[in-house]
């Protein structure tokens, strides 16, 4: 798919954990600004691996090799400082991971703390309120901001993690199965949230839930054995998949 000014571009991205095999093979794709893109595919097809390449998570492990280019607004992220890349491309993990020793308040501000950015008290309060409001958590937690983040329910914790990622005003938000550890109601809540958030941030979301992909995403990718098999408008893909494998997956005959 072609976009006029994509926010993120993958260009022949390959990732390998071991010398013999590639977990992601020559993936090329452009991501439209302020859209939601769903990444689907059977377990082990390389969805997480592709996503983690985009915020340089693989850099943490010396034996993982990444090839190809990833461009953020046309700039190659492999030539940028990882800290800079990760601030502009935020990530939300599958398991909600609020920092256990920090309060809710501190968790929202963790991005600033960890970047060594000092905010005044009023700035802090403003950030915390805005971010928690944007994930519609403010009303639920505004009286318990000093409690540990781990006191919240799973769904609340995940919204806290989204708020924490949003606090740094990233351009892209990567989400790896953010609702798979949540119950249906909490998941629904997050889905609604993502639809609101996309006016400010571009979202790339890995999901096993085809209904979810269909409900919230503008574009969808289907990956199989490390390859990007199909990438199209979500509606088009669901109604008229181009590849046999996509069809098999979407109709539940695979994976």
């Amino acid at each position, binding site marked *: 798919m072609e976009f006029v000014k994509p926010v993120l571009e993958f260009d022949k991205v390959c990732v390998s954990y071991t010398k013999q095999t590639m977990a992601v093979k020559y993936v090329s794709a452009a991501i439209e600004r302020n859209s939601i893109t769903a990444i689907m595919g059977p377990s082990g097809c390389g969805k997480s691996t592709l996503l983690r390449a985009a*915020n340089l*998570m693989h850099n*943490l492990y010396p034996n993982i090799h990444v090839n190809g280019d990833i461009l953020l607004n046309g700039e190659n992220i492999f030539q940028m400082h990882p*800290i*800079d890349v*990760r*601030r502009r491309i*935020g*990530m939300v*993990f599958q*398991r909600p*991971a609020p*920092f*256990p*020793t*920090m309060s809710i308040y501190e968790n929202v501000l*963790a*991005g600033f*703390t*960890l*970047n*060594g950015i000092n905010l005044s008290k009023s700035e802090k309060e403003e950030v915390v309120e805005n971010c928690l409001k944007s994930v519609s958590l403010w009303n639920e937690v505004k009286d318990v901001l000093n409690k540990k983040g781990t006191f919240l329910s799973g769904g609340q914790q995940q919204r806290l*993690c989204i708020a*924490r*990622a949003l606090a*740094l005003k990233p351009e892209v938000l990567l989400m790896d199965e953010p609702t798979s550890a949540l119950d249906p109601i909490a998941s629904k809540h997050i889905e609604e949230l993502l639809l609101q958030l996309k006016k400010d941030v571009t979202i790339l979301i890995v999901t096993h839930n085809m209904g979810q992909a269909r409900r919230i995403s503008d574009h969808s990718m289907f990956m199989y054995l490390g390859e990007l098999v199909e990438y199209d408008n979500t509606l088009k893909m669901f109604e008229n998949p181009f590849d046999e494998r996509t069809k098999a997956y979407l109709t539940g005959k695979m994976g």
Partner: protein
Amino acid sequence: MKKIYIKHRLLKDKLLFVMVSLLSALTAVPLLAILGEVLIKGYDQFSWAFFTEPTPTAYKAMKAVAAGELIPGGIANGIVGTLIMLGMASLFALPIGIMCGIYLAENSKKKFAYIVSYITDLLQGTPSVIIGIVTYIWVVVPMKGYSAIAGSVALFIMMLPLIIRSTEETMKILPSSLKEAGLALGGNYMRVVTKVQLPAAFGGIFTGTLLAISRVIGETAPLMFTALGCSIIRWDIDKPISAVPLLIWEFFNDPNLQDLIWGASLFLLVFVLTLNLTAKKLAKKWNS
């Protein structure tokens, strides 16, 4: 036929269970016996003065014993010395041990880390008397005298591997998701370690420190070569100083002071047991 066989097996099971229980109970006997012995003999000595006054002279003690009174004075010089030396040893062992432990946990695959880890094990297994004599040569000889500093160095060397290990172990069991979440927010490595991982590991490291202290607090041999002992309460760190285990040894060697052995032993035992129990309790609390 079959029924008998099952009965037989059940009987064997029962017998085994009884034996295992008995043997386990036996292991508790030495501890209880020691506790009882020390408690019965030492309890009489406990008084306010015992903790606030230094060791009496042999002459005073002799007079008191002759008059059938309790020996005056106490072990305050030892308590002060022990605290000073533990404090100084911890002051250096904690930061160095924690940094080293973090390094080992984060770089467990590097050759250098492997070597350091191996050396840590060796250090932990080194007999304390050898640490004492080596510290004597390194510190006492050049400083031309026994001192609290020398004693602290010996205790520092003994505490270091314990703190390194407990830090390393605690850091290793932290979920990697914690570190990834911190780095994914654009945190730099040092800040993620200090603001996210260390606070999460605090419980484990604190417990490890308590255990390390309780392990070295009763050490006598290394202090004989380094701190020497001293019969007055002293705060100078460049002079010989006393310690509770040193006092026990001194009391044992002086027929006039032998009655004080048990009070000092009881104090040391209770202190160590308290540290151990606190450490266990905290570990339980933080792990849940």
